[in-house]
């Protein structure tokens, strides 16, 4: 499997006496959308924060394109090509779309002794990239606060893709959105996947997962309950797994022997 971008092997994470993750294995391939499902407290957030460099795993291996990696900070992970879009921390509402899009990586040009932001380039690129994601901005100067929740997520996704993300982690991008905005974001996920980026889609909404997912992994109480391919599992089964009410033995069958 040469196209595996990130492989997480047997990850554990302890916070003092609390075992947040107890042996989680997970991988994501180029061009797929791998959904990570789990109820609240299942360890989804801890897991993706480990993947994106916020936490260091207590034990276990992270392989990025076959290489062992140890990320010291989110910046390290980002530079390697793992970008994370957090649900409510994606954007700064008072700042313009362009300023948000380029934040931290503003393009510059030289004017005399000064280096100033190249706003022509920045604005043009922002408009183009947003148009590719299916959103036509009124103006690149408009404040992000005037965008809908779904559009904000899309700006964050477009930003990550533009800056060369190979793996895109989306932390519950649809949980606070309405029906139509959710559809927009899911369509964006689909576009991103088709461009060859590996998407890790975290959600606790089975219907959203089924809409775009190629594979589904269920986390419960800090452990993976198994991974299923699209078409080998029904929404009901996923729902039951997330609820964690069934015994492992009973689950194996429904997961097609991949547990």
């Amino acid at each position, binding site marked *: 499997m040469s196209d595996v971008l990130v492989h997480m092997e047997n990850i554990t994470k302890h916070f003092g006496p609390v075992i947040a993750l107890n042996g989680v294995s997970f991988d994501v391939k180029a061009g797929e959308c791998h959904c990570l499902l789990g109820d609240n407290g299942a360890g989804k957030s801890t897991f993706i924060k480990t993947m994106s460099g916020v936490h260091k795993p207590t034990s276990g291996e992270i392989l990025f394109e076959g290489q062992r990696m140890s990320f010291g900070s*989110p*910046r390290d992970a*980002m530079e390697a090509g793992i970008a*994370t879009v*957090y649900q409510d*921390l*994606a*954007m*700064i*509402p*008072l*700042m313009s779309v362009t*300023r948000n899009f*380029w*934040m*931290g*990586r*503003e393009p*510059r040009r030289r004017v005399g002794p*000064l*280096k*100033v*932001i190249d706003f022509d380039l920045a604005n043009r690129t922002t408009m183009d990239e947003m148009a590719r994601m*299916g*959103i*036509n901005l*009124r103006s690149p100067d408009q*404040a992000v*606060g*005037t965008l809908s929740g779904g559009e904000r997520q899309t700006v964050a996704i477009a*930003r990550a893709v533009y800056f060369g993300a190979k793996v895109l982690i989306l932390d519950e991008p649809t949980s606070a959105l309405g029906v139509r905005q959710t*559809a*927009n974001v*899911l*369509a964006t996920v*689909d576009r991103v996947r088709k461009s060859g980026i590996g998407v890790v889609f975290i959600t606790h909404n089975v219907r959203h997962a089924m809409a775009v997912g190629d594979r589904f992994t269920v986390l419960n109480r800090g452990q993976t309950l198994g991974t299923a391919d699209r078409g080998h599992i029904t929404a009901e089964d996923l729902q039951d797994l997330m609820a964690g009410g069934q015994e492992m033995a009973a689950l194996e069958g429904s997961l097609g022997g991949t547990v």
Partner: protein
Amino acid sequence: MSVIDGATDERIKKTGGLRRWLIRPELGGIVGTIAVFVFFGILAGDSGMFNAQGILNWSQISAQFMIIAVGACMLMVAGEFDLSVGSMIGFAGISIAMFGVVWGLPMWVAILITFAICMGVGAINGLIVVRTGLPSFIVTLAFLFILRGFTIFIPQTVENRTIIGGIAEAAQGDWLAAVFSTDLAGWLFVWLADIGLIDTFSRGSRAGEPVISGIPMLLVWAVAMVIAGHVVLTRTRFGNWIFAAGGDAQAARYVGVPVDRVKIIMFMTTAFCATVFACLQVFEFGSAAADRGVLKEFEAIIAVVIGGALLTGGYGSVMGAALGALIFGVVQQGLFFADVESSLFRVFLGLILLFAVILNTYIRRIITGER
């Protein structure tokens, strides 16, 4: 899911030009500036407020406010306050006097040491704020008292007085002191007097000389700092990081903006502005006093708020703050020219502050679409 691929979204209302203007942070400042000039043009138009000397008078007062407002504005955009600005002004003045006059160092050395100490204190302010996560309001309030205490204690202990004179004599011929005290373009005013546009002294030792000897360095510093602050804030990468740090520090950190460094540098910038203010003041007066700069921190904050900055950070304009400072200076001196009881100035300040904050809150709702 192809429905979202439409070219335009019919639900987005066209925004009018007026609304677009409303969300500019400078709007309040522009409207206020026009209003005060019209007001005093009517009330004090023939009092000498708008002749050469009058203009010099209120523009110098405004320039003083501008210098500290630049730093306060950028710091507020970065999401923090500095209440120690006023004490820093007094402290820096006494520091220059102690090193340059009492301890006899060359004046340029005294100035450079003072800048280093004050910006160091600014850095400590910033470090404490970012390390402890305490509100900058409290941390800098502590330094308001600490600095003022030292400002009185040091000259009192060493010299047994809290006003130190003799600075002009000690600064004679000093190149760095000249940067804060020379009047520029004197020839222009001689010429203006020759063609009768400005008055000359009719009596005394300077009879025949124009009433204005040149453009004070105070004005040059103020204009230069406003332009520099405006360019940095709106045009540079660092400026974008200042907005980001104040807008949402956590979101900024996630995309790699060094938020802590930005905030510390902004605290050092306000300290720099306070020190510039102090230098201009001591070389103009020729003396330093331990009670200088009292309440300046609040005046700076008021100018910034009139200029459209949000107290919560992430939004504001140096140009707006400069206009806020101009309003300040014009009103303070205008009431004097109009022969109005000057205590009313404080009433005006309180009212305009209240009005500006309410207006800013409304504008914020427009920008972010909150209801």
